[in-house]
């Protein structure tokens, strides 16, 4: 979340609510956007780390809004993040652990585990494809997000099949 906000602020200063709106508009309905509270907390942390600075703007018939702005240090952090490739585990390690360890303890049948996981994935896929159908007129970022999820899910399903072949 931190880097999302830094990237948005690099474009122009904004206050918390504007940032939330920007995220939603950019990534569309499917974006699991955090609540506003989470944004404010993150902004505060960023300010504490010196990556953003804030300013109060007085408004006539509304409470004051706090406008945040990117600092040079924040800019540096952002640039470094852009330059580095993103890492992060994609492995559904929780299920994998379950699949390997649980049958050894005699707690469940591997085939049943796999079937159950697959049914779950198919259900999700159903949702995703329905969502993809309704998002056809949306902007590319929104569509690509959904497409990415679909492809990853397909990969998960294929991996599930491989597990089945080898382990069952």
């Amino acid at each position, binding site marked *: 979340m931190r880097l999302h906000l830094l990237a948005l602020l690099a474009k122009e200063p904004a206050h918390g609510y504007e940032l939330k709106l920007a995220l939603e508009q950019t990534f569309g309905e499917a974006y*699991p956007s955090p609540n506003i509270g989470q944004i404010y907390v993150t902004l505060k942390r960023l300010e504490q780390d010196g990556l953003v600075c804030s300013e109060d703007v007085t408004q006539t018939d509304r409470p004051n809004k706090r406008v945040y702005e990117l600092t040079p240090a924040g800019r540096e952090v952002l640039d470094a993040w852009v330059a580095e490739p993103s890492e992060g585990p994609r492995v559904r390690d929780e299920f994998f652990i379950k699949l390997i360890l649980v049958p050894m303890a005699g707690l469940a049948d591997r085939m049943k585990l796999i079937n159950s996981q*697959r049914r779950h*994935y198919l*259900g999700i896929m159903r949702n995703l494809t*329905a969502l993809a159908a309704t998002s056809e007129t949306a902007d590319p970022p929104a569509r690509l997000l959904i497409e990415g999820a679909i492809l990853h899910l397909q990969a998960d399903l294929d991996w599930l*099949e491989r597990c089945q072949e080898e382990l*069952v």
Partner: protein
Amino acid sequence: MNDPVLRTRGLAKVYRADGVAAEAIRGVDIEVGAGEFVAIMGPSGSGKSTLLHVLGGLEPATRGEIWLRGQRVERLSTAAWAILRRRHVGFVFQSFNLLSNMTVADNVELPALLAGASPKQARKRREELLGELGLTAKAHAAPSRLSGGEQQRVALARALANEPSLLLADEPTGNLDSIGARDVLRLLQRTHDNGQAILLVSHDARVASRADRVIHLFDGMVADDAPVIRAPRPVRDVVGDVLELRG
């Protein structure tokens, strides 16, 4: 459920080559109800395509029973199967669905003519079907002039021309790009919405997940047979079930 369109019991198919017997499917029991959309998934070599071919009478079963519309059909002769297919079974393959020496229009009219319709009736049905697909302009083109997606949609339309009891499809989007696949998928959905019973083989979860039920084949046998349950989720969380956007 009321009488299923398709029912099998203990279906098996054994191939013999060079004295070695290979069991492609062994002991398969499945059912497809009227208007039901069933998908068959499984790794390659699991016997998915073989199952479909046997169910459509393209290959004879070695053992077991097949009931189509309440009639036992696994022992029918090649000719009798052919006649049965005309009226009751529509087939769509992964590729090479259209006859290369006939125009698109001829291709679509052929099943109707085969089933005994007059040329005028056949033409009317063809105009309907092509109109629905938005391909009227290409009626008199050679099949090779259509894109892959268009060819498959025409093939699908042709397979449905005689309003068969069951539509069998073997990886219909296998050779298509994403746009073609999307178009074919939409057509399948519409067909399903019209109450057509569909049995389809696909490794593509996008396609399979649209089915009412998914049968998973493993090593020639049914490993799983369960309906696809659309877990109710708010839109926001759908992608989040797969991707975690961190940063």
